[in-house]
């Protein structure tokens, strides 16, 4: 089943990209379509932040090191740190807290 997922993701995402070069520009001139496509990632990304931070399957799991690492990463994002810094400080915080 994972192969089905991998191949469907690859084909689907590529076609979504290619479609933008093929469809006439006036389709996106429709304000409602443009609005939905622009705002959809905001809702999805916010949900993914929450799920990745506090969920473990169907359970809410408040794991100290994970939350601390995320919080430090969030401060780095807020301070407009480069991607590399966000990743390193989040990982280092969680990893170090698990050592103690």
């Amino acid at each position: 089943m994972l192969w089905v997922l991998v191949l469907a993701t690859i084909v689907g995402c590529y076609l979504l990209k290619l479609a933008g070069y093929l469809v006439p520009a006036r389709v996106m001139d429709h304000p409602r379509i443009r609005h939905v496509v622009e705002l959809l990632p905001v809702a999805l990304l916010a949900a993914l932040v929450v799920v990745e931070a506090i969920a473990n399957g169907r359970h809410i799991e408040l794991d100290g090191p994970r939350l601390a690492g995320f919080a430090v990463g969030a401060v780095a994002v807020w301070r407009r740190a480069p991607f590399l810094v966000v990743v390193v400080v989040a990982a280092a915080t969680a990893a170090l807290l698990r050592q103690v």
Partner: protein
Amino acid sequence: MTRRTVIRDSLGVGIAVGAYGFAFGAASVSAGLSVVQTCLLSLFTFTGGTQFAVVGVIAGGGTVAAALASGLLLGSRNTLYAMRLAPLLRVRGVRRLVAALGTIDESTAMAVAQPEPELSRVAFWWTFAGVFTFWNLTTLLGALVGSVVDPPAIGLDAVVPAAFLALLAPRLRSGALEKRIALAGALIAAALIPVTPPGVPVLAACAALLLATDLRRSG
């Protein structure tokens, strides 16, 4: 802005996102995907948010359908990017097929930021090349390391939500409507975690668009 500074900035973006590639590679193998499957996703899906979403749903025990739906919904923004890039790049034939693969957040942002179409094309292709190279190299590295190291031991479980937040942040800064939608999406997801199968909280968060905006008015 000269051609040289555009190329330098474009490659800089590529190196920066390489760090996410490592996190993706490790997260993907720990979700149960093989190293080959992980690398294929990075090579040919080549859109980080979608890739993290897909393996995140699988890692949480969600169904293939839920994982695919989250990934494709998140990938739909690339269609919008492609429409914005089409008149700038003016690609045809094989070049258009290749340009489609490279149509992502970073290459679009770099291309539309340029003052003239010639520099937009330089920025698009060099950002694509830089991100593609580093994203795929670091995916492989992350997948290999993730195969032998427990990802939480090196803190990667904290990296994933922070990575999504970094993707979300520029959108939050663009307006109050975006903040309301993000808050609504986050609350919907949090409320549904204990009561729905994994993957559903993320999909259901799309309803935030209905709660937080009056789309009828804007149409």
